[in-house]
């Protein structure tokens, strides 16, 4: 027959001490976790839109800026048409560059090639570049 397990005084004290220690450890680690959390995970700090002066994006030119913590790019492929994309290559995270003569985005790390709309034209990138909505308001571009 299996002996019934009884709780000894020493076991009880050890269990209570362990529970208190675990509680204190959790109480100490919580501020540390919050302290180290990156800003974007904090409430109300997500960047909803970015503003770029219209004069920065001439026809056929690209302008790089930061949006939601990532390098991004806005392009005017033809007069009056604007495209905003993430500039982070979907292969391994390098930053793409704009090649106006070829009219492509080129990733210098592993030769990934994207169209002005962000579609994959060649190379290892598995997905197109994420795009953002662009609105023209007076002399500014509102992205996001």
């Amino acid at each position: 027959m299996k002996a019934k397990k009884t709780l000894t005084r020493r076991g009880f004290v050890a269990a209570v001490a362990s529970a208190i220690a675990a509680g204190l450890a959790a109480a100490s680690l919580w501020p540390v976790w919050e302290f180290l959390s990156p800003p974007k995970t904090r409430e109300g700090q997500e960047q909803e839109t970015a503003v770029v002066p219209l004069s920065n994006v001439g026809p056929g030119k690209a302008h790089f800026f930061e949006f939601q913590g990532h390098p991004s790019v806005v392009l005017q492929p033809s007069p009056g048409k604007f495209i905003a994309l993430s500039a982070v290559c979907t292969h391994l995270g390098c930053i793409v560059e704009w090649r106006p003569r070829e009219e492509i985005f080129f990733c210098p790390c592993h030769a990934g090639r994207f169209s002005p709309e962000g579609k994959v034209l060649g190379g290892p990138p598995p997905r197109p570049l994420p795009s953002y909505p662009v609105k023209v308001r007076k002399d500014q571009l509102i992205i996001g």
Partner: protein
Amino acid sequence: MSCRGKVMDYLDVRFGFRDLLHHNFTEYLLPRTINAWYALGAVLLVLFAIQFISGILLLVYYIPDTEHAFESVQTIMNDVPFGWLIRYVHAIGANVIVLALLLHLLSVLFMSAYKDPREITWVFGFLIFLTSLGMSFTGYLLPWSQLSYWATVVGTNMPEAVPVIGEELVLFLRGGPSVGQQTLSRFFALHVMGFPFIFGLLLFVHLFLVRRIGVSIPPFGPTYRPEPPPKEFRHPEYPGGIPFFPNYVTKDLAMIYLFLTLLMAVVFFAPWIFLPAQAFEPADPFTTPAGIKPEWYFLAPYQILRIFPNKTAGILVQLAFLLFLFVLPFIDRSMERRPARRPVFVSVFIITLLIFIGLTVWGSVS
């Protein structure tokens, strides 16, 4: 066998930790008459661990640049979640450490625990004390506030009184003719790398000696008898002593919690004691605020410099006092450790302590 037992057995075969724990915890005996003052070493270990952890966390956001240092500290205080807590624990913890260090030093002095064969333990402990003051002094400048800036201006100006090389010393300490970016850079390097590295080495030797030579027997009670200095090394033995674990660890924990309570009480209810209004104004090298004073533990040396007619004499008196404390175990060679049988020593001890307290109070109110 339970899963936990199997894991423990597996690790024990590869690390031999049960033997280590047995020899250093349950089988390691300490004198039965040991008192709460002996727990200050453990208190300091915990407080220093907190300083290292909170210091590393502050490094994540702090910028050691005169243009951005103050702003980065304000960001830590106001924008980073729990940044105020980490910063207060670090800044106020430094003060609690100095308090615990002073109490540790005074208790070792009063019980004459520095005597043969523990002279080297004392020497390394004293060096740890000086290194800790160095860490406090260099860390004080980093927030680049009016308080920290002007306290550093006054502090770094003190070596000017050293004959012949005084001016060169000040220049070297500051990295330039005045406190500026060069000073901040070298204080930052010393605070986060230089002093902690030296501190680690000193602490290792200190703890090694405490364990190797053993703690001194408290010189109190009817059973205590002074022991002649040993002629050869012997492992510490305390017949009829109490085990380090759990008996002594419980005493250690009680003292650790007492100091943590003190630290947290100041952090939550009275941080202004150590961080007055001037600590929240950015450093302005063109405007000296009224009544600028160093930290409380530097008030006595500060007041000595003010009351001595000659600055060089003031510095030399303090250096002589530090040197005297440093070599005390090599001067004081008598076997007797009982305070009741050392009236001259105890009188000098109490008078010196009262002078220190008096100078500190005088320095704070004058």
